[in-house]
């Protein structure tokens, strides 16, 4: 499908950035400095925008419709930052009962719920019988329009 295109769309801008700044520097050593160099800004990079913590950032692909209401559709790319503390109302990738799931966290006094955002799905009540790992907090969703 469009997986290949996603890859190119996602990573290319940053490489372009490197090339452009390199050329400008070469220009300086070659002769008269470009007056525009002082005002030169880095080209926009999606990577820089969505990745705040490179070492803690991982990606996941959404499978299914359980979070449709939150704008997470089947096939979307999720950016996960594991360095963030999971909190009430955050959307997180969790591992429960042998599989990964993405849900909104609802933290109550002595209980955690994994809340879907689609009326067709039931909230998951996490009890002592479940083994829950809150794997990482979702910070961005990248979707193809």
């Amino acid at each position, binding site marked *: 499908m469009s997986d*290949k295109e996603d890859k190119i769309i*996602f990573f290319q801008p940053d490489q372009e950035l490197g*090339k452009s700044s390199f050329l400008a520097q070469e220009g300086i050593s070659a002769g008269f400095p470009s007056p525009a160099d002082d005002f030169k800004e880095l080209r926009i990079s999606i990577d820089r925008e969505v990745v705040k913590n490179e*070492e803690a950032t991982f990606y996941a692909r959404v499978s299914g419709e359980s979070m449709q209401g939150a704008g997470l559709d089947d096939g979307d790319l*999720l950016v996960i930052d594991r360095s963030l503390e999971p909190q009430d109302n955050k959307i997180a990738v969790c591992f429960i009962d042998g599989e990964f799931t*993405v849900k909104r966290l609802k933290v109550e006094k002595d209980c955690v719920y994994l809340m879907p955002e689609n009326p067709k799905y039931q909230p998951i009540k996490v009890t002592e019988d479940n083994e829950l790992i809150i*794997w990482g907090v979702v910070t961005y969703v990248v979707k193809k329009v």
Partner: protein
Amino acid sequence: MFALIDCNNFYASCERVFQPQYEGKALVILSNNDGCVIARSNEAKALGIPMGAPAFKFRNEFKKHNIRVFSSNYPLYGDMSHRVMKILETYTPNVEIYSIDEAFLKFEGFDYFDLNAKGLKMRKQVRKWTGIPVSVGLAPSKALAKIANKIAKKFDKRTQGVHCIDSDKKRLKALKWTPIEDVWGVGRQHAKRLQAMGITTALDFVNLPDEWIKKQMSILGLRLKRDLEGVSSIQLEEVAPAKKSIAVTRSFKNILNIFSSLEERITTYTLLGAEKLRKQKSCATALHVFVRSNPFDLNAAQYRNCCTLTLPHATDSNFVLNRYALMGLRSIFKPGIEYKKAGVILLGLTPSSSRQISLFEQDTVKHTALMQTLDKIHRRYGPHQMKLASQDLKQTWKMKREHLSNRFTTEINEIIRVK
């Protein structure tokens, strides 16, 4: 003070980060071609699966104990290692990457800080950010830091994975606890000889007279003794590298910013690594290259990148290794960056069964011509018509990797799926 940070059962831990269902379960990782066991989880160790166990001999054993088997996934391990090392580098500018899963950190001028607390913080951060559990050993010398690390790992409940040898009492207790064969830098031969003389612990060793050690084990043995006495004397390169990987990483004296100078550095590191590789009679099956700018220069543009390449066959050849190392460098080099450090880590080491390729080691010009001829033949008659003599001719070209997990962090089509 030095810290040795060691990732616990690193390859197994990498697999578990993305497949948490194997947490607490026995698992083993096989060498390239699924030949033999190169890494084990604690549970697999407890079941008595030895290191180097040939996979075909242990197939029933794996089944019987429900041991999950993985092919080695170097792109994944390389990337996870890179993340761990990068986090460690935020704690001190002096980081020496010792192998894919170990690093020495040197703390200078931190005497009044609570290093144990720092160790706990490091451990917690690495675990949370990357999912990789690490053990931290802190001590005034590298050899002692190694021992402290072992203690931290062995008694992880009590130590919470961090142990600091910061008093003479602790040092002597640790030395008494450490068998001589486990002391960093004491080879099997020396260990045997020492044991025969009744020297069974690190403490016994330290009590030997200097003259005797110098005579029997050269100046290196004496430096080791000093190190164990708490006086830092051992330089990193002086001790034989860990068996499963060979790392050559250095900071540059001056900033490098053009490709050709980095190319030169990477080549030098690769050849150094290859030399060590041949010395211990091993071949590498994968290779990790990284470059980075100076993270402590706040005015410079920051960049760091790495890549891990799986080699087409196990090799100890300068030429082949370097070709791949430079291929890796080309894919991660970004112009306009002031590079401060680079490194090459040779991975997936297997014993070399042949030394034929060394014919070409010194003669890269001829080797180039040879490779060009080979490439021509391949173009004309199809690929893989001719192989290097050191390749196992019985082996089919394609590597056997039946139990390979996804490249969760380096290939976008293989990332985790969430429902």
